[in-house]
């Protein structure tokens, strides 16, 4: 039996991992959190090094292919209480609404074009969505390299949506954990636009969760650092907690 198992494993290693398989493994490495409640701090740094800080409270409900999320802005003070609700979809545009407390108004957002900057940061709406391999086209197998002393796969992906702000993403994925370490984003002119560095992962209740992403725009020299804190997962949230009723007061 041991001999058979060893033989099967040896044969399987002969077949190179494809980029599509790597994407699935990356997704699987982060799956299983069910739901999450966390605080996010977004630090926006301009080319001169000046910093602006924004704080948000985030709730996410994990779906099979796509997530639901509800984000509440805690600062700056003039946007405190603003809420953003998003239902992601793979085969159609996301459903998105924003609640503006000063107007008591829930406003629908046209989400076809997700390349717009999120709250003046270097993150776009599509950067903040859940990673789903179905949103990308993959060809061939990843190359191997090292990043900060870690062995990584280097894997290109082409966004399926013509409304994406990118023509190509190159992901650097840890060979052992399949966790994404870095992504290079190429703009519509096929030029390098941004580099996202995934700063740290933490295992919470047995599931890897990202703790911070530094997004550097190499074209305008601006940087946004996004950090998560006080995250809890598997809180027992359901679709009911992401109903539009929780947008307004």
């Amino acid at each position: 039996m041991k001999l058979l198992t060893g033989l099967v494993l040896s044969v399987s290693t002969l077949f190179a991992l494809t980029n599509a398989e790597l994407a699935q493994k990356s997704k699987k490495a982060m799956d299983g959190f069910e739901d999450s409640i966390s605080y996010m701090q977004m630090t926006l740094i301009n080319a001169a090094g000046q910093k602006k800080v924004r704080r948000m409270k985030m709730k996410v409900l994990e779906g099979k292919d796509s997530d639901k999320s509800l984000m509440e802005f805690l600062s700056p003070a003039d946007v405190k209480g603003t809420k953003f609700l998003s239902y992601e979809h793979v085969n159609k545009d996301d459903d998105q609404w924003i609640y503006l407390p000063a107007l008591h108004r829930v406003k629908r957002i046209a989400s076809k074009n997700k390349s717009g900057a999120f709250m003046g940061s270097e993150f776009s709406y599509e950067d903040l969505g859940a990673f789903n391999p179905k949103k990308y086209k993959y060809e061939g197998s990843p190359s191997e390299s090292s990043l900060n002393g870690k062995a990584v796969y280097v894997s290109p992906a082409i966004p399926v949506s013509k409304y994406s702000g990118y023509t190509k993403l190159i992901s650097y994925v840890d060979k052992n954990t399949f966790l994404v370490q870095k992504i290079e984003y190429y703009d519509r002119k096929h030029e390098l636009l941004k580099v996202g560095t995934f700063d740290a992962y933490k295992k919470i209740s047995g599931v890897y969760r990202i703790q911070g992403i530094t997004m550097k725009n190499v074209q305008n020299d601006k940087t946004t650092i996004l950090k998560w804190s006080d995250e809890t997962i598997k809180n027992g949230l359901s679709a009911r907690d992401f109903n539009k009723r929780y947008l307004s007061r």
Partner: protein
Amino acid sequence: MKKLFFPLLMFTSLYGEVGVSGHVDLDSQFYLMHPEGKNKNSFTAKQTLELEYTHKDLTLFTSLYAQEAYYDFTKESEKTERTFARINELYAKYDFEEDAVKAGKSIEFWGALELRNITDGFNPRDFRNDMFANDKLGVYNVAYTHYFENSNLSLITKLQEEQQFMAAEPYVYYFFPSFVSYDGTLETQESKNRPSIYLKYSGSTDTEYPMDYAFIYENGYDSQRYFSTTTPQNLLVGSPTRGQPTRFVENAYIVNKFMTYDTLVVGSTLVKLEALYAKVDNNPVVGDYSHIGLGVEYTIENIYESHALGLLAEYYRYDTYESDKFSDLQLFETMQNDLFIGARYTFNNTEDSSFVGGAIFDLEYDEQSYYLKFESRVHGNFKLSCDYYYIVPSTKLLSFPTAYQFLGKHQKLGINIAYYF
């Protein structure tokens, strides 16, 4: 020990989350064109304080507001009566699994369009601020809502009709002639506390082209009101008593009203509709009427760096169906056959800076309004807003003047600095 333990337990079980926020505004307005005899400017300090207490499914919320107008502290002839304090909201809300109950004084928003929300009539407006500000008055009501998966059904009972006060004559936005006085008196068809009932069904479709929809039926006092006087002869041109002191009162009447507001998403375009039909309950001067607004909004992302440009177009139509009763003119309806073309330029920068502007063309009375607004966070908790309005009233000789003819050719420059906490 027990004496200490139980009060502590009680306190802990009552403990919830308390939120405090608000802003202090300094609002300056300069009227570059204004009617003779009116103040050339206005300077107003405004304070808003919001307190929220949440504990599990219970929310208690209050919003308090006060403002002080500079001219109310100067000589008598310049006083505008724009200094006051009021409770905007004070309510309790309890969320059950599939239902919610809300009771108290609150402000709601009903609408989809950008320029004017014709279905947003739950709360009356306060006339003491400028005509461009959507300054709503809270109303006492009880609301029960049942939530379905993608929709909800609400039964709302408004318990009282609010008075709409107006600034005194030296204020540029006091519309009536100088011999007309109005002290906020409200006369109602039945008791002021006759409840207005609203049945509202709203939700979202999960279709290829998703849509947010809302349908409302109302039986109660209409959001449209009218002014009347016991001495109408004082208003008539050629009457020997023309120009004698005349007192206006505001009137609220009962309607059966059907309203809808909807937003359809087609790619990067939002298609919006607001419509209403009011069946007026036997009023001597106001007849049945309808109002419709249609709009589109298209947004171009990353038009320059991360800037976004939103293009807006809206058309409004108001019709009355009883020719022997008040028309849109006597009812001061400004959006009766109007086209709005506008744009929103969002910088998507760290200060959330944006420009919004547009032109409104009255296709019936040949009036135009132009406006441009700029908003930006300036330093941490400070926010700067500047706006410019230019109104060209109709030159037509009409049976009754338009609201803009009362105002005259008008230019306003506004600067608002607010500190948020």
